[in-house]
């Protein structure tokens, strides 16, 4: 039985994406652990990397062994959401082919995050670590669903290699 090159790409995608996202999640949780173990330099490097993407305010971050994580509650939720949804099967993601469903999904995942972040400024809502984590995770799930779909598109766009049945013409280039 011949192996479909597209299936091979999907397998690579299914392993590669969760692996990268899982390593990111491990990295921001590892920073306080490394600091608590006395490896201050390694922890500082991880913090410096995440400082490019997050404000890292200690009061708005979870802590481990007395040290804050390298990202805030909301960013932790986004990364966890990205990782968790990248583990889900691809099949359900075909819903995103329908532009209407896609927009509803984006609005449904983004509105809670925006409301949770902006309503406290108007004094209408007080956000907590749990709400920041949950709204961030929902947003991360939405991002992961789009990311997986986009990578599938990219896998399809890459030209397929020559199969055994397609023989080169005599005298031509293989």
């Amino acid at each position, binding site marked *: 039985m011949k192996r479909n090159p597209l299936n091979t790409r999907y397998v690579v995608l299914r392993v590669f994406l969760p692996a990268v996202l899982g390593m990111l999640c491990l990295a921001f949780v590892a920073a306080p652990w490394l600091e608590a173990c006395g490896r201050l330099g390694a922890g500082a490097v991880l913090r410096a990397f995440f400082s490019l993407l997050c404000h890292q305010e200690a009061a708005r971050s979870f802590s481990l062994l007395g040290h804050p994580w390298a990202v805030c509650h909301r*960013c932790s939720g986004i990364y966890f959401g990205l990782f968790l949804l990248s583990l889900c099967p691809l099949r359900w993601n075909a819903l995103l082919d329908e532009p209407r469903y896609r927009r509803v999904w984006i609005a449904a995942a983004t509105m809670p995050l925006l409301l949770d972040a902006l309503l406290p400024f108007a004094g209408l809502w007080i956000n907590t670590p749990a709400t920041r984590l949950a709204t961030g995770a929902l947003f991360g799930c939405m991002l992961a669903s*789009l990311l997986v779909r*986009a990578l599938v*598109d*990219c896998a399809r*766009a890459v030209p397929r290699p020559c199969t055994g049945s397609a023989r080169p013409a005599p005298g031509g280039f293989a």
Partner: protein
Amino acid sequence: MNEEGIWKPALIAGVLVGILSTIPGLHLVNCACCAWVIGGGILAAHLYVKGSAAPVTLGRGLVLGLLTGAIGGAVYILFSIPLQIVLSGGSTRYFEQARQSLDQVPNLPPVLREALASMPTGGSELAVLLVLTGLLMIAAFSLPGMLGGLIGVAIFEKRKIETPTQVYHPPIDPSPPTGNEG
């Protein structure tokens, strides 16, 4: 797919992202989940979808966003370092101020403090440091830019894309062969 058409929206949005992320005060918007960069990706996707005759895939949005973020990062580096040097009154004074502010950071690891104290202030070492910082910034801008490109295409592309899974396959006749053919 229009390969050349991807550069124009990426350049417009990337330059805008780089400039907005540099302007003192306005750059703080990036503290909210890199909002300028994500917004730049969305803008690039909007421009690209508007000018594309064929439906734009999410994969194309991903590439467009990556490109926008990378251009934004490069523009940010080009503008921010000279601006910081000018605002602090010269390169030597800029590095002195950076060291003084680092001295005030509590619980800074001694290894890191020593490394920062021996940071070069001129010559080829400084150039290497700037290039490394630039590459890191381009990578850091590319990630949220990519997500912005994805969100932008998902929002603005209203035409349905025919995927290979939706190709029509004619039904196969399940009746067994009678043996009279031929």
